[in-house]
């Protein structure tokens, strides 16, 4: 009755990546190069959603912090580029750094910084659980948000426009294809890593903790360390996504870190389905395409959008993945 993990877990991932890989040629054949940018945006949010889902779906922790972490990643890329462009050194305590527009340096830095912030806030947040966890992560998200707003030098509420040129291994990430393939590669790495992760010893403990924390403790495992590590890892992935968004659009602003954006990411995960690594990719695609499609039809697009979301909540228990499963089972 259990299908081989190769088919169950890896086939959908390969299919998703293949479909994305086909986007550029199809888009160009149809004379719709804009579709590549839409796909890039979906990729970026898919990365963030997959990262969030590690704590949400597999760790059972509903976090509203992740837009904040996404934004931290974006600001790392933005601020690094700002300092390089303006030729002012960035003082990190006693260390002066000239900044960088090289995404091969700043993207990993974005991931690391987000992971560090996630760990710091995770240590406090993980004292709570359930609905209290949701709200304490909301509080931390708001703190990050207002921190970004207070960064006058980097544009404050208006956001930070990157005027310097960025480069990614010699390519210009503002070119649509470069950006697309960069985002696609990151998604591929994130998907493969996440799929391995949930099947690893660490992943088993994380999933067990989500189901029954008391039992896990009785087995001799201290759950909090694993939860914290998961928060840090998913923070790193969200930071990476934020860095990509900033790098590709040369812009980052506090609006990217509002708690509503955290909510959007959760909705993407739930829409797609929490039980699989790849479900959130479907959710992100569905969410963003609906938003784009409906808002092109009418300015009152939030009405049909809301009704669709309600309908999905009522009838799609288990998200799009659940629907696919049921269609196949029928």
């Amino acid at each position, binding site marked *: 009755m259990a299908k081989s993990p190769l088919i169950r877990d890896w086939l959908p991932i390969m299919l998703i990546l293949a479909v994305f890989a086909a986007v550029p040629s199809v888009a160009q054949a149809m004379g719709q190069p804009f579709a590549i940018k839409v796909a890039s945006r979906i990729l970026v949010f898919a990365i963030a959603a997959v990262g969030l889902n590690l704590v949400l779906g597999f760790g059972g922790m509903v976090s509203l912090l992740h837009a904040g972490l996404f934004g931290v990643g974006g600001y790392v890329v933005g601020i690094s580029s700002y300092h390089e462009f303006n030729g002012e050194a960035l003082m990190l305590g006693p260390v002066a750094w000239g900044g960088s527009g090289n995404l091969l340096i700043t993207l990993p830095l974005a991931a690391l910084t987000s992971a560090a912030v996630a760990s710091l806030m995770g240590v406090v947040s993980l004292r709570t659980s359930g609905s209290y966890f949701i709200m304490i992560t909301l509080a931390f998200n708001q703190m990050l948000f207002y921190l970004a707003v207070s960064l006058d030098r980097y544009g404050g509420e208006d956001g930070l426009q990157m005027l310097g040129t960025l480069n990614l291994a010699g390519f210009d990430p503002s070119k649509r294809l470069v950006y697309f393939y960069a985002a696609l590669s990151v998604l591929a790495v994130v998907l493969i890593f996440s799929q391995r992760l949930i099947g690893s010893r660490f*992943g088993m403990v994380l999933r067990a903790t989500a189901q029954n924390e008391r039992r896990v403790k009785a087995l*001799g495992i201290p759950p909090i360390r694993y939860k914290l590590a998961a928060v840090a890892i998913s923070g790193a992935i969200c930071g990476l996504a934020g860095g990509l968004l900033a790098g590709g659009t040369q812009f980052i602003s506090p609006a990217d870190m509002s708690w509503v954006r955290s909510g959007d990411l959760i909705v993407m995960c739930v829409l797609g389905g929490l039980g699989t690594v790849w479900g959130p990719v479907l959710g992100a695609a569905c969410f963003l395409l609906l938003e784009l499609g409906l808002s092109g039809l009418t300015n009152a697009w939030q009405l049909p959008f809301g009704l669709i979301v309600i309908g999905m909540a009522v009838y799609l228990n288990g998200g799009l993945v659940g629907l696919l499963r049921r269609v196949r089972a029928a």
Partner: protein
Amino acid sequence: MTVLLETRNLVRRFGGLVATGDVSLTVLAGETHALIGPNGAGKTTLISQLQGELMPSSGSIWFKGADITALPSHRRAQIGLARSFQITSVLPDFTALENVRLAAQARQGHSFRFWAQIAQDRALNDEARGILVRVGLEAMTSVPASVLSHGERRQLELAMAMAMRPALLLLDEPMAGMGKMDGAKMTRLLAELKSDYAMLLVEHDMEAVFALADRLSVLVQGRLIATGTPADIRANADVQAAYLGHH
């Protein structure tokens, strides 16, 4: 005979209520020790303090000669205290195999390994399968725990405790809610395990208790009123008055 587990003057209060009152109990290495008493006597509260889920108000707990009173529950599990829960507590979304495998994995130390797939760890999977065979769940290996029957879940619970290779099994009513058939099966299983593990057994099924236990302790209203061999306990007037008399 060496002392494996010992409580010294253990007290636990909930507000004004004394759930554990000055309990001094010893479990010897290799013995099967049963803890009996009427409902509400404080048996589960005592087990929870032994396992570390509840902290005592005063008194101390000693295990293998060391004071473990302040140790968190996961540390106690790591040094050899395994608990099965009164209300079945398995991981519902995991298969039977995954449940047992997790317990075996936990025993092997930390789980900060992010890449290697546990499904491909042959030794660990074989060990878990072996334990499932031993408790009679070999047919259910790849069935999610949420689908198992009540009796099967109790067996799974025991299998998880075994996979921890504990020095002492804390079994909180392993036969609770079981029918006669399943209960008998569990009794046979525990009898087989007697030689491998020391056990502290909380159980209401007196037939099973007297068949399995080397020694018994009787808890009434949080206080230990007697400890001894099955024959001693049967003969003890206090016990008869306070407890057995009701049956």
